């Protein structure tokens, strides 16, 4: 069996008196898309920030490529919920920044890499625009371009579909899938959208009360007997089943 890219065991994190993570165990196989589901406030973003090294867990172990304590930030990208683009830099400078600061590439090589990343995400015309001048979807793609330009082994997505309409969130998931094949990275996606997660994810994990309540493939997720999993799976179906309401005049 191939060693997983990332494995988490017994992760605890507490904020003052409030325990957010109480022993999280998670395995992320290499090359897969793992969707992390859970209710609001379940600790999904905290778990992701612990994985990215933005928060220090109280206890527990994070192994990247089988090793602990390895600084894997250079091999790991993080897509923030609010994109966290540098608002005083242009789109080109935003994407160029990680290359300028962490590699020893020449200026011409950086320019080439940035333009190809922007081209891949359909942003080459907006290279000299500031983030505030771009639409929400474009900003999301720009943030993804900034993450992908360093060719990371793993990308952590913090609610990439938050605030997007259902069609746009489907597009984001298909974009993740497409670029996963193109750039060959492992993805951990925190999301609330069960439908697209079932369609795009290779594995699903459900975080409930600070623990992983369920982990498995989408087929196992749908077939699970777990009550919390069932409530997530049935939610979409219930909405579809709702019949059109009649108002008092009998109109739909």
């Amino acid at each position, binding site marked *: 069996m191939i060693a997983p890219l990332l494995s988490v065991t017994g992760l605890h994190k507490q904020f003052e008196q409030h325990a957010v993570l109480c022993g999280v165990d998670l395995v992320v196989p290499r090359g897969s898309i793992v969707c992390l589901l859970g209710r609001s406030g379940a600790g999904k973003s905290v778990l992701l920030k612990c994985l990215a090294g933005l928060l220090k867990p109280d206890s527990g172990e994070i192994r990247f490529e089988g090793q602990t304590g390895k600084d894997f930030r250079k091999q790991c990208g993080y897509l923030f919920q609010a994109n966290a683009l540098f*608002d005083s830099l242009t789109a080109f400078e935003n994407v160029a920044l990680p290359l300028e*600061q962490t590699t020893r590439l020449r200026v011409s090589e950086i320019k080439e890499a940035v333009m190809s990343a922007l081209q891949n995400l359909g942003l080459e015309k907006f290279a000299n625009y500031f983030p505030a001048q771009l639409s929400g979807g474009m900003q999301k793609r720009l943030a993804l371009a900034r993450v992908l330009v360093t060719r990371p082994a793993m990308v952590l997505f913090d609610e990439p579909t938050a605030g997007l309409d259902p069609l746009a969130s489907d597009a984001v998931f298909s974009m993740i899938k497409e670029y996963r094949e193109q750039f060959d990275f492992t993805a951990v996606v925190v999301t609330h959208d069960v439908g697209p997660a079932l369609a795009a994810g290779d594995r699903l994990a459900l975080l409930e009360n600070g623990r992983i309540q369920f982990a498995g493939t989408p087929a196992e997720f749908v077939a699970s007997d777990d009550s919390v999993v069932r409530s997530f799976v049935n939610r979409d179906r219930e909405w579809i089943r709702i019949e059109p309401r009649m108002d008092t005049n009998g109109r739909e």
Partner: protein
Amino acid sequence: MVQRAFLLRWLIRGTTSHRTLRDGSVNDSVPGNELPGYDHSVPTGRAVRLNAPIRPFAHSPIRPFAVSPFRPRPRRTPNAERKSTRHLPLAPPEANEDAVITHLLRTVGRRSLAVVAGLGDFAEFVVRAFAAVSHARQLRRGVARAIHQQGVRCLLVITVVSLFSGLVLGLQGYYVLARFGSAGLLGTFVSLTLTRELAPVLATLMIVGQAGSAIAAEIGIYRYSEQIDALTTMAIDPLGYLITPRLLAALLVFPILTTAFVLVGTFGGYLSGCCLLGLDSGVYWSNVHSAVRFVDVRECLLKALVFGIITIAICCHSGFTAHRRTGASGSRAVSISTTRAVVFSSIATLAADYVITSFLV
């Protein structure tokens, strides 16, 4: 007389009705309760107590007393809680004193620990920012931008402020020195005051007001829009990228702007002393030339350097730790950290000025 009658009537309004002023002046107050077209200070249908106490200001919009001294205060009825605890035995006085002392010591201790922890955090921040010189990339570009922010943008303010400071010093100095018959020493007075004291302090305060506040706000917004976290996830040291260039720029900018302050200020003293008040310009400039020695210039530049590092570090630290402010977050935390940056920088400048002066003089 009319005014007096009106005043008298106004004083005893509490118990009487009277015609309003629109009906013209009325010499007499009309006691009563149902007269049409009158202002009824007494509710209709209620008997007027003729021996009621006179309460001035009772109907006046001006209330000189929070509680009228003329009104009998209602007797305070003890509430249920007070009633229930009244019969309980009091705690022994020693125990009470102990509790007060413990509380006092705990509060002082907590505050002191917080101050010491804050200073330690600040010192570590500055040391790590300077240590990041070893691995920070594209430092030259960052320093150039910071020099533009701190130096070029502040040049106009510094020039104007230094010119007016020099003009005022020239005027004040001339009149004070003229009392002792030594107006000729104006050049010495202006140049030494500026070099040793005024130029480093005023230039620092102006740069803090113009650039320091901008730095604190900018870095605070970086913090709240997760841009600092984004740098961390990209394996870029936020201190090396954001703080180090600004500190290095301060090392250059502060001495240069302070020197400019001295030069323009001395010229301001010349304008008011020689051009306006008629002092001989040769005397003025020869005094400037002979008065300022190497130690004065050294003191001036040393002060500028120390003030620069301290103030810009305080401003950077204040913005960088904006998220740690308790009791506020977001834009409010940024505004508080900006204000604190300017206030603490100004205080630190004056305190450091005293310390440096006391060591060097």
